[in-house]
């Protein structure tokens, strides 16, 4: 096969990796503070794409507006969910959080399937990002280049906020010992609510990025989130940078597999997960 095809698959891998990284990052941030695996993450990603679609078709607000507005809209939905439902579960087994968010995912997906069927709806690439760059060895569509670049920036910004700022230090401290942090006069319940909102907002942002690439459909999140779970297991949820690296890395490996042995491309991440679990059960970046 040609190098053209190789670079083509690598590009697709990088794009997928951007979404893996963005979504597993959100999952890791939420898990760190709430000890809940947010099963609704895929549905919230789908919600993000739909909000962008509505903004364009109902309010006439384009892509750039959607990028700004959507995370706040869907994040607000997340805040409501946390206040009304998740906050009642913190004293229980963590598995209940998983079951609750799974139920919410079904409700979201079912509602949108009911309204819009299962066919995807197109969302066109904004005019300013149309066109293609000739890199010599391959052609790079501008929009795809933008998604990779923007995801990287957002991932690194999230890492910076959590690891290098005062706010982030509160967050990390509350992850270790919420009672003690509360005793220092920090409003931990509010921090938990906002963290969940922020994680959900990240998922929604990923949804806006995805809308022009994968089309907008009610099922766009459900199979993706299962792959992201595998990514999270491989990386271990202990480290933010770990989530980012694992996300991009696995996207690239998946792309390479599509080039070398396409039959295995849909299962390669799960196989890697099985191998990692046998050798290093806590995940590549996880702590015991």
């Amino acid at each position, binding site marked *: 096969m040609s190098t053209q095809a190789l670079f083509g698959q690598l590009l697709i891998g990088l794009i997928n990796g951007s979404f893996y990284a963005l979504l597993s990052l959100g999952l890791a941030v939420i*898990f760190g503070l709430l000890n809940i*695996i947010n099963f609704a993450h895929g549905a919230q990603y789908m919600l993000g794409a739909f909000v962008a679609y509505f903004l364009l078709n109902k309010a006439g607000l384009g892509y750039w507006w959607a990028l700004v507005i959507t995370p706040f809209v869907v994040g607000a939905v997340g805040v409501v969910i946390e206040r009304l*439902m998740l906050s*009642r*579960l913190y004293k*229980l087994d*963590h*598995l*209940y959080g*998983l*079951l*609750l968010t*799974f*139920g*919410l*995912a*079904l*409700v*979201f*997906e*079912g*509602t949108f*399937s*009911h309204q819009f069927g299962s066919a995807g709806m197109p969302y066109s690439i904004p005019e300013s990002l149309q066109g293609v760059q000739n890199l010599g060895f391959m052609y790079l569509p501008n929009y795809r280049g933008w998604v990779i670049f923007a995801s990287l920036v957002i991932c690194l910004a999230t890492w910076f906020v959590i690891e290098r700022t005062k706010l982030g230090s509160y967050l990390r401290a509350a992850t270790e010992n919420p009672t003690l942090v509360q005793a220092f006069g920090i409003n931990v319940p509010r921090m938990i609510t906002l963290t969940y909102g922020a994680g959900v907002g990240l998922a929604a942002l990923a949804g806006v990025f995805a809308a022009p690439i994968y089309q907008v459909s009610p099922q766009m999140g*459900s*199979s993706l989130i*299962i*792959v992201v*779970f*595998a990514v*999270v*297991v491989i990386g271990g949820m202990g480290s933010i940078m770990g989530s980012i690296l694992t996300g991009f890395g696995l996207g690239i490996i998946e792309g390479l597999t599509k080039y070398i042995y396409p*039959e295995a491309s*849909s*299962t390669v991440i*799960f*196989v890697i*997960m*099985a191998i990692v*679990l*046998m050798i290093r*059960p806590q995940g590549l970046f996880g702590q015991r």
Partner: protein
Amino acid sequence: MSELRYERVAFAVMFVAFAVAPLVIYPNFGMQLLCFALFACAFNLLIGFGGLLSFGHAMFFGMGSYLAAHAALVWGLPIEIAILTGAATSAVLGAVTGLIAIRRQGIYFAMITLALAQMVYFFCLRAPFTGGENGINSVPRTHLLGLVDLNQPLAMYYFVFAIFLAGFLLIHRIIHSPFGQVLKAIRENEPRAVSLGYRTERYKLAAFVLSAALAGLAGATKAMVVHNASLTDVYWAMSGEVVLMTLLGGMGTVFGPVVGAVVIISMQLYLAELGSWVTIAQGMIFVFCVLAFRRGIVGEIEAFLRKRSAS
């Protein structure tokens, strides 16, 4: 009344209800109820008594159903051997995936089983013998032991009923055996069980394999009932459904999964024409159960009876 008395009465009620059910409902629908009830009981063995939440049980149900259908249609095996083939396949799959999954606990265990099940789903989508999107269709039913014609709905119903009873009683036996007691000890406090000298990993793996085999048995039987095996049986939604049945009926109760399966499958039948409403309703039941009804139907009844006998 003692706990044991209650259990006997409840068992008698369940036995009679299923025994006379074909007089009231279509035998075909009754058989599906029985298959899903067995599937939920198998799942409950793991979560209710081992404390392990598997989010990938569809892989055992689906593989059991595929292999049984394949064995009956292509290899021409008699029905009882075909069903056993399906169950055995799921047991082997359970051993392999179990070895991987039990390396983590809690939430990770759920995510890992879900991911492994998705891998099995993709395998079934691509593998030549499953028929991909079409599934395996027109699976024949032979004579049971060469004697009873199972194409008669009532004969098939009681055959399925017998399989369900065998599975149910086996699970009951497992729970009340020393092995089952160790499982409960691991669920309550794993480090303590380790300190008492139990190799908890082996117990968990054994429970996982047993649960997988029984789920496979349920899937294999279902393939014979509906004459086909399809991708629906291995899809993640099926894993979610069995969790829902068990949660609604009562996790860790003996009869809960049966009640939950009957409610959910009946609901699906009545809402079937409304399409996506089934998914919405299931999601809402999930949310409701987690927020306000964690003991489930049977769990609540047990708690009520216990309270009454205490006062």
